[in-house]
């Protein structure tokens, strides 16, 4: 069985107080022909060992770019990080040399992607790809690495792993492929796993299985999990905290249950209201009006004001700060207390 306990040696890194991962005032811009697209505008959050943080947002809200910035796999250019820091156990990843970062990617911070079919190399058997992790990072020989690959495939509950180890990605079902992707990502017992929409390409029953697997692995290993998703349903059972992103910034951040029970930002409120409910049968579904703003031309004031039903004059001129409304609840809204009260 895998001994996935790395949580014990957190202190040995010598930064006892530093959170496992800390994103501090991060900005990411894409310099395009049409101008500068501000994909991320001052995102800050932290993650502790054993914790699950859900980053929630619609397409283009900057959640995947955040993940790529943490991993250091943004294509630069066109991407530029003008400000901010990403600290892993106290060390800033953004100022590290490419070589140092490569040692972090995989063994320390790892990532799984949305579509496992395209995230697995089509010309290599899956076992080879899992084994590559051990060969590259640990210098294992082929046979040992292969044995490790089989062990990991069993760990992620792939039936007949010994026979399947030589199959190619396209010979697996979607759920099985995602399991293999997970096996690759957890191969070296990372302390942080970033899951970028891990279940979006899967059907609902398989989604639940994959989430259960991720949760199980997390409990066993004590790793920190960042779950990037646009699906409120996926998040509810799994996450400890949620950060809701809109237009490249966090608009609300809170523990899961309070946030679901009583959102403190109109955007979160709108998202929750647009979940179909059984008792709503026959009635029209709620939808947030309008579209997210273009990253090239942000509105003045609050970035959500053109779509917000509560927008006042102040919202069109003054950009609200992310502030703690009640302990543990952060919102980027002038009227957060009102929203929370409703």
């Amino acid at each position, binding site marked *: 069985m895998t001994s996935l306990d790395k949580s014990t040696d957190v202190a040995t890194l010598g930064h006892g107080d530093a959170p496992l991962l800390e994103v501090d005032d991060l900005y990411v811009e894409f310099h395009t022909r049409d101008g500068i697209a501000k994909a991320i505008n001052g995102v800050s959050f932290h993650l502790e060992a054993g914790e699950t943080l859900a980053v929630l947002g619609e397409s283009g809200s900057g959640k995947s770019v955040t993940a790529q910035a943490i*991993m250091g*796999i943004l294509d630069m250019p066109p991407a530029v990080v003008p400000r901010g820091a990403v600290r892993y156990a106290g060390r800033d990843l953004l100022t590290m040399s490419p070589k140092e970062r*490569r*040692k*972090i*990617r*995989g*063994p320390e911070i*790892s*990532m799984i*992607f*949305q*579509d496992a079919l*395209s*995230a*697995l*190399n*089509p*010309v*290599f*058997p899956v*076992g*080879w790809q899992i*084994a*590559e*992790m051990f060969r*590259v*990072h640990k210098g294992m020989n*082929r*046979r040992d690495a*292969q*044995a490790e*690959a*089989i062990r990991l495939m069993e760990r992620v509950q792939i039936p*007949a792993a*010994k*026979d*399947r*180890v*030589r*199959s*190619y990605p*396209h*010979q697996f079902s979607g759920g099985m492929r995602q399991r293999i*992707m997970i096996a*690759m*990502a957890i191969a070296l017992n990372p302390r942080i796993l970033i899951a970028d929409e891990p279940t979006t390409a899967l059907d609902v029953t398989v989604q639940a299985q994959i989430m259960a697997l991720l949760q199980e692995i997390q409990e066993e290993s004590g790793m920190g999990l960042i779950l990037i998703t646009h699906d409120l349903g996926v998040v509810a059972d799994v996450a400890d905290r949620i950060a809701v992103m809109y237009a490249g910034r966090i608009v609300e951040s809170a523990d899961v249950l309070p946030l679901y029970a009583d959102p403190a930002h109109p955007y979160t409120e709108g998202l929750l209201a647009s979940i179909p409910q059984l008792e709503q049968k026959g009635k029209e579904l709620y939808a947030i009006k309008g579209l997210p703003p273009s990253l090239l031309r942000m509105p003045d004031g609050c970035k959500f004001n053109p779509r917000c039903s509560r927008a006042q004059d102040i919202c069109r001129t003054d950009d609200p700060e992310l502030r703690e409304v009640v302990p543990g609840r952060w919102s980027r809204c002038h009227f957060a207390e009102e929203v929370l009260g409703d």
Partner: protein
Amino acid sequence: MTDFSHHEPGASGAAAESGVPLGSLSTGPVEPDGGAAAPARSPGAEAWRELRRKPMFWISATVIFVFLLMAVWPSLFTDIGPRDAVLADRWAKPSAEHWFGRDLQGYDLYTRCIYGARASILVGLLTATLTALVGGFLGLIAGYMGGITDTLLSRLAEVFFAIPLLLGAIIFLFSFSQPNDGFFKTVMSIVLILVILGWPSVFRLMRSSVLQVKPNDYVQAARALGGSPLRIAFRHILPNAIGPVIVVSTINLGVYIASEAALSFLGIGLQDPTVSWGQMIDEGSEQIRNAPHTLLFPAGFLSAAVLGFIMLGDTIRDAFDPKSR
């Protein structure tokens, strides 16, 4: 006759597709042989496992093997020397004794066809290998690095691409080769000019193939899981991008053999006393009414060799594509 006017031999996708319809000879489902936890095979080994089961592979491989044998060891096929002439019997028709008949000089045509293989195969193999190496390597670098490296390499390729193959080769060979150069020197100068003028087509193919592969999630994933740039380029991008290059190079091999024949036909490639198919076609074409067999037999050998390589290229492409399994 072979089309000599091709400047970009077989580089278009259509040319690669228009070959023999080998794709239809797909094999059965994947068999999970045994439950033993043997190490995963490399892609090359997997492709070989696929190839072994295809009759078309064995047919083309046999044809190529026979030609290779002719090139290396011509006396295995015939007792007569390539310069044993019986002038009285010139233009003799094919007979039981002399299967292909005799040519203008009274040489035994069958023997000459056998001896002609060496020059053609050598030129074809060397040129195809070198263009694939040079063009493939530069294409990988240009596609992967992008930016200024890509721009410079692409412009350089375009400069060479703009020179018509045959015209360039004629000028080069006229200026740099002497009629009394030895066999290897002439072959090498032909190979050199074909590589100089031929690498851009492989370069372009490789570059576009790399550009297609590069944005894939698995390249991102390889980065996210800690792969070094060198490893990503050679382990993750190259195997996914090399398919078209292998196919086109194998097809080009045939085209280069034809180009050598064309140059010899024009009298600036291999010269007497070296025997080559192009030269024989040249001689034979002058007597096409009188003695058509002097044209048809060397042309047939040339076609068979070219076809053999094109067929091999096609089966290799299928074998390297896991989705066709």
